[in-house]
């Protein structure tokens, strides 16, 4: 199908093209909800079954990084919304600027996520053969924890063992938590990376001045996608970081 200007050949009018593209994105997002839904269900059931181990495992993740990332991501949603608005009112330069800002914030988020993953790597909290919830308490020098934190962790681990029946169960169930943690945040991060790719494409197109009040659906739709990924994080943050934090 040939393209005339912004209009692809299968469509009669730009209005129809816009309606199709937007409906397509919404439909895609519904699919995405169910895609993440499988993981959320698995998480919820295990969170219910292994409440104590899950809340302990959750506390070994640094709250501060997660909180900063939440702010960063909400900020990126704001800049994304601003770029959509700029496109709608025809401020072509602003579109590009806000898209670049969104991309930067998205990259910051991924960077921080990388730091968090690295921490978990150091602490042997990555599921697999070398997974060990006792690594930090057994090797006090290896993890970046204060003496009080270590003492606290020791007591909590002891209590947990009494509750769930020994260190093997603690390890198995907390590995389940971290499998879900990495599964969910990893899938989320993958969506962020795809989003960053889309932003790059938009930035190039926007620099060429392609987005105008008449035709800006790509910006709007990538915006929808970006907000969706943001909302997923809004759910992930309390589920994974804020269990039982008082």
């Amino acid at each position: 199908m040939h393209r005339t200007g912004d209009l692809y050949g299968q469509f009669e009018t730009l209005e129809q093209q816009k309606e199709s593209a937007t409906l397509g994105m919404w439909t895609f997002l519904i699919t995405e909800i169910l895609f993440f839904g499988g993981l959320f269900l698995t998480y919820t059931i295990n969170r219910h079954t292994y409440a104590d181990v899950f809340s302990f495992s959750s506390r070994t993740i640094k709250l501060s990084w997660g909180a900063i990332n939440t702010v960063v991501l909400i900020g990126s949603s704001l800049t994304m919304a601003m770029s959509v608005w700029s496109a709608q009112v025809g401020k072509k330069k602003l579109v590009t600027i806000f898209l670049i800002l969104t991309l930067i914030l998205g990259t910051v988020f991924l960077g921080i996520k990388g730091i968090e993953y690295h921490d978990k790597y150091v602490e042997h909290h990555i599921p697999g053969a070398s997974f060990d919830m006792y690594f930090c308490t057994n090797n006090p020098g290896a993890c970046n924890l204060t003496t009080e934190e270590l003492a606290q962790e020791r007591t909590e681990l002891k209590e947990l063992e009494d509750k769930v029946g020994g260190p093997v169960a603690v390890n198995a169930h907390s590995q389940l938590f971290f499998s879900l943690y990495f599964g969910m945040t990893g899938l989320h991060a993958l969506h962020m990376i795809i989003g960053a790719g889309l932003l790059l494409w938009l930035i190039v197109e926007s620099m060429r001045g392609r987005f105008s009040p008449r035709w800006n659906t790509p910006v709007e739709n990538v915006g929808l996608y970006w907000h969706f990924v943001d909302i997923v994080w809004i759910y992930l943050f309390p589920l994974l970081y804020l269990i039982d934090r008082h």
Partner: protein
Amino acid sequence: MSTSPTTPAVHQLPEEHYLNSTYGLRSWLLTTDHKRIALLYLASVTFFFFIGGIFATMIRIHLLTPNGYLVTPETYNKLFTMHGVAMIFFFLIPSIPAVLGNFLVPLMIGAKDLAFPKINLLSWYIYLVGGCFVLYSFATGGLDTGWTFYTPLSSVYSNSAVTPAVIGIFINGFSSILTGLNFVVTIHTMRAPGMTWFRLPLFVWAQYATSIIFILGTPVIAITLLLVGLERMFHLGFFNPALGGDPILFQHLFWFYSHPAVYIMILPAMGVISEIIPTFTRKPIFGYTFIAASSIAIAVIGFFVWAHHMFLTGESTYAALAFSLLSYLVAIPSAVKVFNWTSTLYRGSISYDTPLLYSLGFIGLFLIGGLTGLFLACLGLDIHIHDTYFVVAHFHYIMVGGAVMGYVGGLHFWWPKITGKLYPEFLARMAAVILFVGFNLTFFPQFILGYLGMPRRYHNYPPEFQVLNVMSTAGASILALGYLLPMLYLTWSMRYGKVAGPNPWPATGLEWRTPSPPPTENFDVTPVVDWEAYDFKNRPDLGLTQPSGPALSPAHGDD
């Protein structure tokens, strides 16, 4: 033959159409024309049908004797698993939507193409990549988990190539999702002027309902199989009780998709039947809105019945009661369709052409398949027939007797539109009858076998079951002939068949108002629809002789 046009006009192929507008491999592999993509799918699903068919043949040969000398028990496990995986994920699910749906939806609603032609091509490539992974799994160790991939067998204990297979099915899922997305958007936004929702052909309604399942169900199986793959590769414990995981959770997630997937297979076939029956009875379909709404109802209710697969694997009695009741409810919209089709036949001007033969076969076989489904939804009875050949027979009546009959019937019905050529009618009628006979001989004995207690998935059986098994195998060879015949004469007709003309039956749909084969842009001018669906009466352009009576002539006697 009553199907040839009443005037003995000699038709000619249009000078330029979608098949000859461009040439070369590139023009096919990079095409964004929905009609060409449909043919790409046709070739690929036929390939997988062959693969699955070879496994089926080996299963049936093995079961000729009680001890089965053809393959080892391990290989037997692989045969029925690979048969199921190839047939379900790579043939049945894409067959009608991706081949006939792709070809017809834009034509039926008067659009130039689907809303997202490039995504349409992408979904075919995704299908191919997924297919390659699965073929790799078949070739390097096979697959022995059953098509259901139950954990922890699939994630821990199986020694076969499970990982590439689940990756392949995971990837293939996105092909379905994108096709569904494309259809939903296209049906919403691309309808020609005057093509209101209630003038849509019922085939389009069926595709819409199917697309809803694609969109809502497929992502769940995708993530579930991804977790199985991860569990297997990294020894995680999502579904492994030894590590704290929950195998029943896997079954819930699996069937949340895989039960609606049955409706992915049967709904489009129902759509095909709803097109064929009015055409060959020369009557508007009886109860249009009910048939349309029942498609949506099946899609919706279908999402709430999944745990009827798990009556015996650990769920509470109350949950089982609810799921049993809900499963019974699906019978209502299904019965609505059957009643409406038969009512359409009543006092119709019937011509027993090949597509109608397939449709009549469909109605009968679907009826048996559907009613035996109620046996299985019944809590008490299910304890007796669960995991027996009764189940095998039941779902083959739905999937082969229903879905495949619909698919083959649809292929015949639209073959003149797709290729511009007519297939040999006599041979085609023969093939339809052979298929019907072969099918019943293959699968009806399995109902009895199951009721007598022969479990499914076993490589041997007590000697007293041999007669019925021999009947089944004999039927399978007739069935194979019934499939080979259309493959041969349809291929033959592409070159040597008579030129069909734009509307050989004649039928009322928009797709018949454009030349056969259609031009790349589908219609020379955007059509404007000012008639209701299946309205034979007010369509002088169809060239039907109009009797003076109130209805079109009652059944005529030339067949």
